[in-house]
């Protein structure tokens, strides 16, 4: 059933008793053309684009828990493509473009809100970096501009641009096409659309091992039995190195907790996303009214989806400095996810030493914004058994050749 105001009205007449399932919950078949391991946003997007772009519909997405339960459902929902290097700009811009039509493409409102993303500069060095970045972004044909403190204050009236601030705001870059989206809706929208193409979505099924013969993957072993597959794509943020170890190779990622928190809902006070590298914090206000606040990763490596209190204590100090009216507001909920970070802070979307086994991982703190582009490129890589030019630079072998894409400065906060 297509979603629209008309179907909503029609179903209201029957008190919403006739809505169909958004996706089926089938039992796994013995074999598929492609198995995607990991039912987060990236995995579901991969399945969707395999079906839509490549006509491969005999596909299963296998998820250990519930759809979108990893970082897809735990991030701060920021979307932007203002990346320094050409390779990053290309994939994040591809992603942003897909996002711009995604609600209509999926027939599921993902609530993309292009309200603008501000990156603040607090010292001379920040300003120089900002200039470099914005120059590069503009010459790549992507929107970005630089604002003065006065212009920042006009855009964000509640921000403190006083020169007496410990780290005063000296300027900012603004990507107007950046913004936020509803993270769960991205996962659910992709799931529903992939299901409509015939993709089997199998929840509560953990992949325990890979079936490999003669250096080529033949399927996966799961808690619901073996599932054969011609090709297997693995996209399991937080556990990529664990899964790679099962396949017999090492993945150059470190796993860290990354925390976020929300305030109680309040009436709108903040109409764009504000990020600050120097004071390690980023904030936006959700449609529900909650301030959504994130920071840098917890410094230690861990697989526990919870973080340390001192990390968020520090970020709250910074945020009440930038936004003095936040001091009397209250934290409602905090949580953590596990992010896989690569040495160069760029992702891996790649073939692997095992034939027909592909990995998509290492998105660090930046995975949500990349979801459509990542799925689109990964689908191409799986379907053609070779990367698309857009993700060819993000291959696993760059760590041995040295063609790194160092984006440490590009993340919201230093990794």
């Amino acid at each position, binding site marked *: 059933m297509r*979603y*629209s105001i008309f179907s909503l009205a029609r179903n*209201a007449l029957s*008190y919403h*008793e006739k809505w169909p*399932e*958004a996706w089926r*919950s089938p039992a796994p078949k013995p074999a598929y053309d492609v198995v995607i391991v990991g039912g987060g946003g990236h995995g579901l997007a991969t399945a969707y684009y395999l079906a839509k772009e490549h006509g491969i519909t005999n596909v299963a997405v296998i998820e250990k828990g519930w*759809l979108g*339960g990893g970082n897809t*459902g735990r991030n701060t929902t920021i979307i932007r493509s203002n990346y320094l290097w050409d390779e990053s700009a290309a994939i994040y811009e591809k992603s942003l473009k897909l996002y711009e039509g995604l*609600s209509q493409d999926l*027939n599921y*409102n993902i609530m993309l809100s292009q309200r603008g993303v501000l990156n603040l500069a607090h010292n001379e*060095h920040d300003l120089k*970096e*900002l200039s*470099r970045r*914005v*120059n*590069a972004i*503009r*010459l*790549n*044909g992507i929107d970005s*501009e630089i604002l003065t403190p006065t212009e920042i204050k006009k855009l964000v009236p*509640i921000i403190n641009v006083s020169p007496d601030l*410990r780290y005063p705001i000296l300027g900012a870059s603004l990507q107007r096409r950046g913004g936020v989206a509803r993270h769960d809706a991205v996962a*659910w929208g992709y799931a529903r659309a992939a299901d409509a193409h015939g993709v089997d979505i199998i929840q509560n099924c953990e992949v325990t091992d890979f079936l490999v013969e003669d250096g080529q993957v033949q399927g996966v072993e799961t808690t619901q039995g073996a599932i054969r597959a011609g090709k297997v794509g693995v996209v399991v943020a937080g556990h990529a190195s664990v899964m790679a170890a099962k396949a017999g190779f090492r993945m150059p990622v470190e796993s860290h907790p990354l925390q976020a928190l929300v305030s*109680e*809902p*309040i*009436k*709108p*006070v903040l109409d764009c996303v504000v990020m600050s590298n120097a004071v390690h914090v980023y904030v936006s206000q959700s*449609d*529900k*009214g909650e301030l959504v606040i994130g920071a840098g990763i917890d410094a230690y490596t861990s697989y*526990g989806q919870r973080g*340390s*209190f001192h990390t968020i*204590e520090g970020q*709250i*100090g910074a945020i*009440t400095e930038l936004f*003095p*009216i936040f*001091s*009397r*507001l*209250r934290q*409602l909920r*905090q*949580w953590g996810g596990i992010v896989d970070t690569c040495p*160069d802070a760029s992702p891996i979307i790649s073939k692997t030493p095992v034939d027909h086994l592909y990995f998509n991982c290492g998105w660090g703190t930046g995975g949500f914004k990349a979801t459509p582009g990542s799925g689109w490129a990964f689908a191409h890589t799986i379907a053609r058994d070779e990367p698309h030019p857009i993700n060819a630079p993000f291959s696993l072998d*760059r760590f*041995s050749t*040295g063609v790194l894409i*160092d984006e440490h*400065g590009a993340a919201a906060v230093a990794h």
Partner: protein
Amino acid sequence: MSRQSFRLEGGGRIDRARALGFTFNGKRYQGYAGDTLASALLANGVHLVGRSFKYHRPRGILTAGVEEPNALVQLETGAHSQPNIRATQIELYDGLTATSINAWPNVKWDLMAVNNRLGRLLPAGFYYKTFMWPRSWWMTYEKAIRRAAGLGRAPEAADPDRYERQNIHCDVLVVGGGPAGLATALAAGRTGARVVLVDQLPELGGSLLDESAGTGEAWRQSAVAELAAMDEVTCLTRTVVTGYFDHNFLIACESVTDHLGHTGAQPHLPRLKLWRIRAGQVVLATGAFERAIGFKGNDLPGVMLAGAIGTYHARYAVTPGREAVFFTNNDTAYAPAMAMAAGGARVKVADVRTEPGAVADRARAVGIEVLPGHAVVSAAGHRKVRGVMVASLGAEGQVGDPRYLRCDLVGMSGGWSPAVHLFSQSGGKLAWRAADACFIPGVPAQTTRVVGRANGTIGLSALMAEAHAAGADAAKDAGFSGSGDAPTLESDQPEQAPLQPFWSVPAKPKSERKHFVDFQNDVTVGDVRLANREGYRSVEHLKRYTTLGMGTDQGKLGNVPGLALLAEMQGVTVPEVGTTTFRAPFTPLNFGAMAGRDVGEFMDPARRTPMHDLHDEAGAVFEDVGQWKRPFYYPQPGEGKDEAVNRECRAVRNAVGMLDATTLGKIDLQGPDVPALLNRIYTNAWSKLEVGRSRYGLMLGEDGMVIDDGVTSRLGENHFLMTTTTGNAARILGWLEEWLQTEWPELKVYANSVTEQYAVAVIAGPKARDLLGEVTDLDLSADEFPFMSWREGTVAGIPARVFRISFSGELSYEINVPANHGAALWGALMETGEKHGITPYGTEAMHVLRAEKGYIIVGQDTDGTVTPLDLGMDWIVSKNKDFLGKRSLTREDTARTDRKQLVGLLTDDPQAVLPEGGQVVEELQDRPPMTMIGHVTSSYYSANLGRSIALALIKDGRQRMGDTLHIPQPLGGPTLSATVTETVFIDPDGSRLNG
């Protein structure tokens, strides 16, 4: 001012001698000391206090505690204002002002209540299905949605209050000061263990506070007195434990003066204090939350939880109504029913159980009409309940013919959910107890014990025995003994009959859309059914799709019924559907308290050098470099930045300038293996560096990229001083320690930061030797004290290490003295230097001067992607020894000869200064995109050369010498053209610096 017409004649813990005036929604009322805002409103007959989040339905006070989902108010106005505060938690003070939130123009006539009429169109997740056409309109829809959403308002001015944080350590932490918590604390406290008892209320006692007289109150008073007399016991009241983290680390927030209102607060005290508690053992005595039951209109003002009615009655001497119908599936609702009946109210009880047992007989004996096997199927009224329909329930769940009962109050009890939140946060696993239809603590993850109702324990004597044993055990595990005997406190309540699980009255779909499960977020039984039908069957999907449990009460009321309903719909047990994760904080935690004193100038300590005040007096403009404040330039009257920097640069090349270089990282290295460490850390060789000599070094990461540089000097056979860049000082010390501790523990090296132990003044320029010669006992001749060496002597009478090194390309001495002599040194050099034309210079002139010489700044001319070879610094990379990053330099891409390389750029127009960060293109296009081949890393106007200079990283740059390249300025300004040159613009043979 209204009379308190619902206040009881006697009883309660309020102080009738202290009347307090307050204002709610612009109307003046009176309450008493000891009231909460909620109890005072109820005493005045005010039930309608708010509007729900989505449908803007009228809502009243539902509970008497932290679980309240409805009665959220905007407390106070102006800078002191706070949104979304629960009226049930606000202690009344004189002059309190509060207003309802999320209603316009007011709570009585709320225009947004149109959403309630449209409610049929707005089921759970409706927004995912619409607002998609036309595409560009979403931002408009969103604006309207955002305005309608949200609850209260943020204050409009900065917070005038102060907050503190305090650390506390204890052997046993007891959370909850009810009977179980008191018994636990007594048992642990008597052993001499250090005990902290935390409770959220102003008074210890918990549920015992609901009996103002009798044996419970007597015991409570003696327990509180005994605890107060124990030296090692700390009782924190008005304090909520909000978070339970790893390693028994807990966070609690105490109201120090918040409850007094801002006019009553003492200025020397903080508003709130955040306690950071590290406990050996933790005992949770957090009690239980009563549950609501789903029926049509169960959200009408006047429909309350039965236990809350009891609390208002007993603790606050308020009767929330005069004619009550209780609706229950268990025994506990009978006590408040009987209390109301005793107070003269007309009371009926609809009990879903066909055989309610002895408690029903006792109720009937006091004149209460009990309807066994009956349910309240709907409530009637407009902004206030005025009656209910009750009907019999068949064995198969069929509902009989309803009949109308007039009432002005409904008390519901759907059973109790132990407050397992903190236990779950700590990592403990929950278990389902089918008999009481509730989750109870299962296996703990830390040294955690749970007692009393939080553990599902029913009955006062059982609870006291359990609590005493847990307190004694916890103390014993902490190394203490001697808890004495368990207290005996007999309950006058007889044993309870079993509860009958019952979550919502069976009804048609239309009606189920008005059976509320999550009151704040307007999630109904119909929404749960819709989510399940559409496949959002995981509890997490249910939560996220319907927003069940995502309100400011975090599902304290609605979560368990929601899960149970989902389980029922799926035909499985509740534990099979599981629970969502319990997240900190238990109750909303104030941001100001989290930040504590780490705001304003304390947000991050500003580091100032010992010469800072002298710079300030000289009129320096400062810049932030890491945590340091460094002089940026020293403008003289009438000078702008450019003029000042030009003057400073000329002074250094023509006379002598002085720079405060204190902030450079200084690491003292001692031990026989320092040369070995340096050989591994730096790209060049260090074994042969003699005592008295200095050497420049580059450090690489494992990836072969430059991470830092600096000069290291040999102070003695086993003693070296390393310098690092200002911003990297701590990171490099960490880098050395990481290698020393994890990979090379065999190396005998001690590394210590001495950055702040020494002040450093750099004098640079052709007159530097003349100046220094006047104030030192050192022989400064080039033979005795050559470039790249250091000597120990006195400067201006101060013991000093003088390093003859240079970052400006001039003859230069870096004078290190003990930090507390820094200002004296600077002052003496300024005074003596006056005749030599000494000019203090800042970081900007330093940058220009080094760029004239082609010296790099790590982090500006490098960005983590640059090798020494890219910088043209092959001369410093040893071929004979191994060092960190060496292997990476041989990688296919790193070894390429056409990588981005550091070159000089000279603009065609010598007066045009390239933008730093400008991107360099070979072939200009009319418009983006265009291919970039590098970027400008450093760019200045050089007063000494009378033209601009720049450094840039350019792809295959060294093969482009003499080529013309272009720098477009997409942010405004003309495209500039420049010629590729070598990086050294001044004194390429180094005669100035070696002289």
